[in-house]
């Protein structure tokens, strides 16, 4: 094998200019070492939102969108230092149809190097996938759309209960309780966190004790508690949020009575995916 000549010895590789040079009118250029991250991110939000703006500026790429029913919100942040290189000269909203973006991202290999590019005043987003060995380059252009985005101000809340737990465990719990119930009641106390559901066939509950699983920090459940909380949420939405599980081994649930739940997946050093879900209407009044 070693004796065989490399293909580039014979052929001029026509696309190399796409990945290396940056023309002056390019507004945004962001290069990710692994396409997998963006692929997973899209999987994590595309069920909730179909169209939204990716707001790019010099600090990074952010997204905020509500679902159609206005009960859930996803907020995403990719900091500029997670990219190499990252350049964005001024604020640039990229209106995208997530279903279509996902179709294109499916064409990228997990380990491909991914570059996002958009021109000033252009109406497309360019995506370039380079294979790791630099022997294959794919370029796709996706049409941008004008999206009237509604930005919500999310107040800083000091939550009464903050639970750090394994994201896989959380996914498992949501999946299991979905079998019997449409909603889940979450009770967080100083001893642990309890998820319970009730449906036509019966009821069930899962309690995770606050534990000091020192051997395996990924599995441990930690609770920061100011005050016990008890809240009920739609399981369908929570199960939807757990599509972000591949992005992080840990998830944080932040709760206070009668305010939206915050479910956060941290992306190592790069940013976060946050989901907010309004609580179910209680029986107060």
């Amino acid at each position: 094998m070693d004796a065989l000549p490399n293909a580039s010895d014979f052929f001029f590789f026509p696309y190399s200019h796409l990945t290396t040079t940056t023309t002056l009118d390019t507004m945004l250029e962001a290069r990710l070492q692994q396409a997998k991250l963006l692929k997973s991110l899209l999987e994590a939000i595309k069920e909730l939102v179909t169209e939204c703006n990716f707001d790019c500026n010099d600090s990074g790429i952010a997204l905020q969108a509500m679902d159609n029913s206005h009960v859930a919100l996803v907020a995403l942040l990719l900091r500029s230092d997670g990219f190499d290189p990252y350049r964005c000269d001024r604020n640039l909203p990229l209106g995208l149809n997530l279903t279509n973006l996902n179709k294109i991202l499916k064409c990228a290999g997990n380990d491909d190097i991914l570059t996002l590019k958009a021109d000033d005043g252009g109406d497309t987003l360019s995506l370039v996938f380079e294979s790791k060995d630099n022997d294959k380059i794919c370029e796709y252009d996706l049409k941008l759309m004008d999206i009237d985005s509604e930005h919500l101000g999310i107040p800083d809340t000091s939550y009464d209960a903050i639970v750090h737990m394994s994201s896989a465990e959380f996914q498992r719990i949501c999946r299991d309780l979905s079998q019997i119930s449409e909603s889940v009641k979450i009770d967080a106390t100083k001893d642990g966190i309890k998820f319970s559901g009730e449906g036509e066939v019966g009821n069930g509950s899962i309690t995770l004790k606050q534990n000091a699983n020192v051997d395996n920090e990924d599995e441990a459940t930690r609770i920061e508690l100011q005050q016990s909380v008890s809240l009920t949420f739609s399981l369908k939405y929570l199960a939807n949020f757990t599509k972000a599980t591949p992005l992080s081994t840990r998830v944080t649930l932040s709760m206070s009575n009668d305010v939206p739940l915050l479910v956060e997946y941290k992306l190592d050093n790069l940013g976060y995916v946050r989901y907010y879900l309004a609580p179910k209407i209680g029986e107060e009044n």
Partner: protein
Amino acid sequence: MTAPKLHRHLASYHKFSEIERQQIQKDLLKWFDLEKRTHLPWRKEFDHTLDTEQRAQRAYEVWVSEIMLQQTQVATTIPYYNKWMTSFPTIHDLAKADIETVNKLWAGLGYYSRARRLWEGAQKICRESNGVLPNTAKSLEEKVPGVGRYTAGAIASIAWGQQAGTVDGNIARVYSRLRAIGGDPKGKSTIELQWALADYMVPQDRPGDFNQALMELGATLCTPQKPDCKHCPVQKNCRALEEVKSTQKLLSSEKRVKDESDDESEVDIEECHVCLPNDIDDELSVTRYPRKAVKKAPREEECAVCIVEKKPADSKNPLDSKFLLVKRPKTGLLAGLWEFPSVELNETCVAEKKSAKKRKPSKAVVSSDDSEDDYVPEQKSGSPTLKLLAKDSDERQAIMGKHLMTTFDIDLDSCNILRRTELGSVVHLFSHIRKTYHMEYLEIDADSIDDVEDTDQVQWISRDELALAAIPTGLKKGIKLMENLATVGAEKKIKSTPRKKVKIEKDPAAGTRNLLSFFQQKPK
């Protein structure tokens, strides 16, 4: 383990001695200084140096917090309190506000008449005494609307430093346990006893802190279920705990420790008439005090609701539509909130039933005085217990049509109805009522009805405003149903009324609150 029957005992069993009084005051205040929750925005240390004006401001803050905390959990209250204080930092700001702003800030807290009374109270106090709330419990209770005995005691002691006792749910529980009061918790004699204890126990020095300490104890340790007696600062003075301990001892030793007939022989000492006989299956625990109140089943009520949308026929833009909202009466359930046109379906008086019985069964009978409340649809003769005015959607629609005609001058026979469909039924639980809202949705061509000026009782508002209007939670579910309908059947218009109720459980968002009620839209 079952407790033995509550023994007969003397009235003095429920009293504190002077030594106990001082001990409890000392222990409780010491505990409060160490353990009190400090994240409550309305809690400030009592400051002797405040002048009257500053103290009056404290009185306003305490008043607002106490009214908000009635029937509402602390955690829920905090954001509302902060929002309120930002909008109305002083009593004068509140008095100057309009009731719409006040209700909007309150939306979600429940018991809306509280907001109205605060507002009315503020106006009265500003008018009569330049914004300074009275400084004694008695005059607070007399002069300020919405301030009852409890709130008056709390404001007088916490803000004005008056030696006034007070009893709220938490304090009632603490005293019930400390003095093993086994009377009906709603009974007059029980309540009077608790107030007598509260007035006796409150110290001259730091009365506000003492009252707050009692509330705090009830909220954190002496909780309704699973009280934490081990950490209780006044456990050694607790009769309920003493009973548990002595009974345990008695049961384990199988010996009678004390013969109660001794007490009974002393005829000149008053016996207790407050306590009820013990329940047989009462658990042996301090939680047997206070006694459980006998809970009445919530009243069943049904109500027909119609979401009326007027829409320019040639417009495809949903934002051009307007929705009809009516203001609820100033008193009663959900007072002063906005709602869709609705008709209560339960109001049948006895006389009406009789006259209906005499009539032959007929469809939609209109009673002689022709008011919409007395409108009675088909009734089988010989069914005097019939309570509901309408049994199915046809009858409800008939009643609603009549209601729209008489109240809003909307004649469904002459205007162009684009769509009329049942949305389904939603049950909302109030503390004392189980209310079923039968929702329907009516879309009218805007050109076929007369434009009417909005009044302070009736308004046509846009879809955006609908999300922000002060509409009770129960009816917001109706908006949700309508939005679902709009997304499901946007193209095909349903001509006939579907008989099946919409199954709301299938929508994962059903029953979940709107995020917009928590997060504000940023201006673009």
